[in-house]
């Protein structure tokens, strides 16, 4: 039986169990002529849970353990001298090929006689394993059902138990977010440590040359993995982006919050929010075919050599991308400044702009700074715009009209194509990813603390 069919059958049995629990609880109530503790639906649900949960747990545990057990048995059954002659890595490849053969997938070059024999053995084991799983699950489900159904009595607190299961399930779901973070950190840390066995951290963090030769092109040369040119490129592009986004975004927010008549607010806000919803690949394409050539032409006119794909192109378009981000965050923060502060300033005879500049903005400053930090973190982590428009030139230079490369671009370059997790050329992507993660995390944490402090101030 395939796993899908197995789960579907289990669900059907659970539905049956629900029905049995429901009717049974009604029968019990009628028989003893009493009020049950819970409504019939809860008894049904509880019987279904008793029937399904143990079987499901068994299924999960089984699908996790059984393949490993089978591989162990297959390895055990192989001729001893053959296993002894293979390195760990060869053994893993061998087992992978055998697994493919046993599941009737083709492997490159057919299969050797040993492989075929092992595959036949494995196929037999798998059939046995599958049958026993089905049998065991059936036993679990039926036992659970029978026991729970017999337990139904007016005193059984079915609702409380069902609710406890629901609460546990809810809590478990909120654990997924934690596991994601842990997964990110652990997976990247693991690969990064592997990377540092090839290249020392000092070389990585302080190196000024980025030139990762792929192992096929050179002989033993590993290439140079200096982070600084990439970090510098990232900073340059982000700085240009912020120079565009902060003034425009902040002024938009001020105008929207303080001056705009309601009709303009209703029209302009959704339009600017559209900018926030556009996928970054579209911005990248826009940069490549519109902004890049435009800047290059402008450069020709005033006599500067601006490349079509440059830090300026990427930064400008990235700035456009984060305008709505800056403006909606600052808008929220400006509207949170208490009205009494404004009234005070206006009452003293200040004009509206003086009120904004000398009272509202200073009061809102921490929050706005937080918004800028969040915007910066977004700019640093942005990928597609720089992949398309920054030109991929990992060299340390201070000319914004030249091509640069960033951390994100390099991650994409190093990890697309071959997926070989053993060479420093791919592993470096994880080291870069971890660096990126730490930088953005730092910015976010500071920003969140600042914004939270700011909120408390006026609550």
């Amino acid at each position: 039986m395939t796993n899908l069919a197995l789960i579907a059958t289990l669900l059907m049995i659970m539905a049956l169990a629900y029905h049995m629990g429901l009717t049974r609880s009604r029968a019990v109530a009628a028989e003893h002529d009493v009020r049950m503790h819970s409504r019939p639906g809860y008894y049904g649900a509880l019987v279904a849970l008793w029937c399904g949960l143990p079987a499901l747990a068994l299924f999960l545990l089984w699908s996790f353990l059984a393949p490993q057990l089978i591989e162990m048995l297959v390895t055990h059954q192989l001729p001893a001298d053959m296993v002894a002659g293979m390195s760990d890595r060869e053994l893993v490849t061998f087992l992978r090929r055998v697994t493919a053969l046993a599941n009737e997938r083709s492997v490159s070059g057919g299969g050797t006689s040993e492989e075929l024999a092992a595959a036949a053995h494995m196929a037999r084991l798998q059939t046995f394993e599958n049958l026993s799983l089905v049998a065991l699950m059936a036993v679990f489900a039926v036992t659970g059902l029978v026991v729970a159904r017999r337990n139904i009595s007016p005193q059984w607190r079915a609702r409380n138990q069902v609710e406890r299961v629901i609460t546990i399930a809810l809590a478990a779901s909120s654990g997924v977010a934690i596991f994601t973070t842990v997964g990110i950190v652990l997976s990247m840390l693991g690969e990064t440590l592997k990377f540092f066995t090839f290249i020392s951290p000092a070389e990585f963090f302080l190196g000024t040359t980025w030139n990762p030769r792929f192992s096929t092109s050179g002989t033993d040369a590993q290439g140079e993995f200096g982070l600084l040119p990439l970090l510098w490129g990232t900073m340059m592009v982000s700085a240009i982006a912020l120079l565009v986004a902060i003034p425009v975004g902040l002024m938009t927010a001020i105008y929207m919050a303080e001056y705009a008549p309601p009709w303009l607010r209703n029209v302009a806000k959704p339009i600017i929010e559209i900018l926030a919803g556009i996928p970054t690949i579209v911005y990248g394409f826009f940069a490549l075919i519109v902004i890049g050539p435009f800047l290059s032409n402008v450069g020709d006119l005033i006599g500067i050599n601006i490349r079509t794909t440059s830090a300026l192109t990427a930064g400008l378009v990235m700035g456009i991308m984060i305008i709505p981000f800056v403006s909606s965050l600052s808008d929220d923060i400006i509207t949170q400044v208490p009205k009494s502060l404004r009234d005070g300033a206006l009452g003293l005879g200040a004009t509206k702009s003086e009120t904004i500049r000398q009272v509202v903005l200073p009061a809102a400053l921490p929050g706005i700074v937080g918004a800028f930090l969040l915007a910066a973190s977004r700019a640093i982590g942005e990928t597609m715009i720089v992949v398309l428009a920054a030109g991929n030139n990992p060299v340390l230079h201070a000319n914004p009209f030249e091509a640069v490369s960033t951390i994100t671009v390099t991650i994409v370059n190093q990890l697309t194509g071959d997926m070989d997790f053993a060479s420093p050329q791919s592993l470096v992507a994880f080291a870069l990813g971890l660096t990126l993660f730490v930088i953005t995390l730092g910015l976010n944490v500071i920003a969140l603390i600042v914004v939270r402090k700011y909120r408390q101030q006026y609550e």
Partner: protein
Amino acid sequence: MSITIEQRRQHRLMTIEKSLATRHRKEKRFRRLGLMAVMTGMTLVAILFASILMRGVPAFWQATFFMELYFDPEVIQLEEKPERASGESPSDFNQRLSAWQTQAGLVNWQVLIDRALEDKLSEDLEPSQLRDLRALLASNERFTLRNKFMDDPSLLGQTIEVKMLASANVDVWLKGNIDRDLADARQQLSAQTRAWADQLYEEGIIRNAFSTALFLNTDSRSSPASAGLAGAFMGSLFMMMIVIALSVPLGVASAVYLEEFAPKNRLTDIIEININNLAAVPSIVFGLLGASIFIGYLGLPLSAPLVGGLVLTLMTLPTIIIATRASLRSIPPSIRQAALGIGASKVQTVFHHVLPIALPGILTGSILGVAQALGETAPLLLIGMNAFVANVPSTPFEQSAALPVQIYLWQGNELRNFFEARTSAAIIVLLALMLSLNALAIWLRKKFETRW
């Protein structure tokens, strides 16, 4: 004494009045600056959309041949298509059928096309001109012809009107997307082919017809004119189905737990901070997670929508949690108190009263999260979805492209003149999907908005 006070007052008023003009001018300038910023934002949206639409809309119509084609029995020397005889086993029949199909594949379909074209050009061609002639049509149209015949063998000996795609270069030439005055050496088509293309266009044999290929075909390397979005669309659809099936229930469940059940302690504080941070983690980091855990550790297949869906699920989860929590928080406590007051349990209160009221907000947040996932590119590149895939995936476990990745691949194609328009058309399709999702979200929010 009183005079000096009066004088001072006068003096002060004078200064204020004098400065007033400047201050008001400043006020106006500041205001204008704000308006300019708003206008800048709106202009940028306009430029972006205009430039994409200008390039992309023409690509929905493509140079197409409309001409008669004779299925010449002398060229198509084939036995009759096998019919299943009574008493024949299915495998025998399939064997006969596939033998017939192989035979059909060996027929020189190109000759039929060549002859039809020669007929239209009413010229006798030298064999050396054949190359120029064949450059007119998309190179895989001969397979389209073959498939058409295999579906309906009764076409043999008939002359029918067929619709065939012109090659990408002809499309570019006829649309004027390449400078017509360029020297021969820099043109992608020979002078002869260009002359023919112009002639056939004037005669109405080549027309600009709505490009169904863009929607029905998959990506193609050998024949760029017939490259389409079908495979990428299915890939994205599978991923969105996975995202909706996983991230919405998980996200809503964890938001409900955190907002309604969780005790306020250290642990839930950490979870909360963690979720806020996760929402701001760059998307490419999720791609790294997918590459190392789903592909490297769990051994899931490369380029599969399954892996893409899982990565995007993790990425969307915080967005949905945050939106759901905001929506739950906006429900006044009186609703909960009323339910609890008449004896409902905590779980009953939440599931029977709070969640139904919060539903519109939850839906809006979920749709926005899914729309964001639909447009995400970077993490997909890291799990191998940038591979060239030439068929429509039928399960989430097969190799597949995705809409945004297809855009990425097309913008990098060397045939710039043709693919710039094709890419813009793909962007229009993607934006149309995303904007309709966004519009749906906004409509839901407006329709069900309750003010307490």
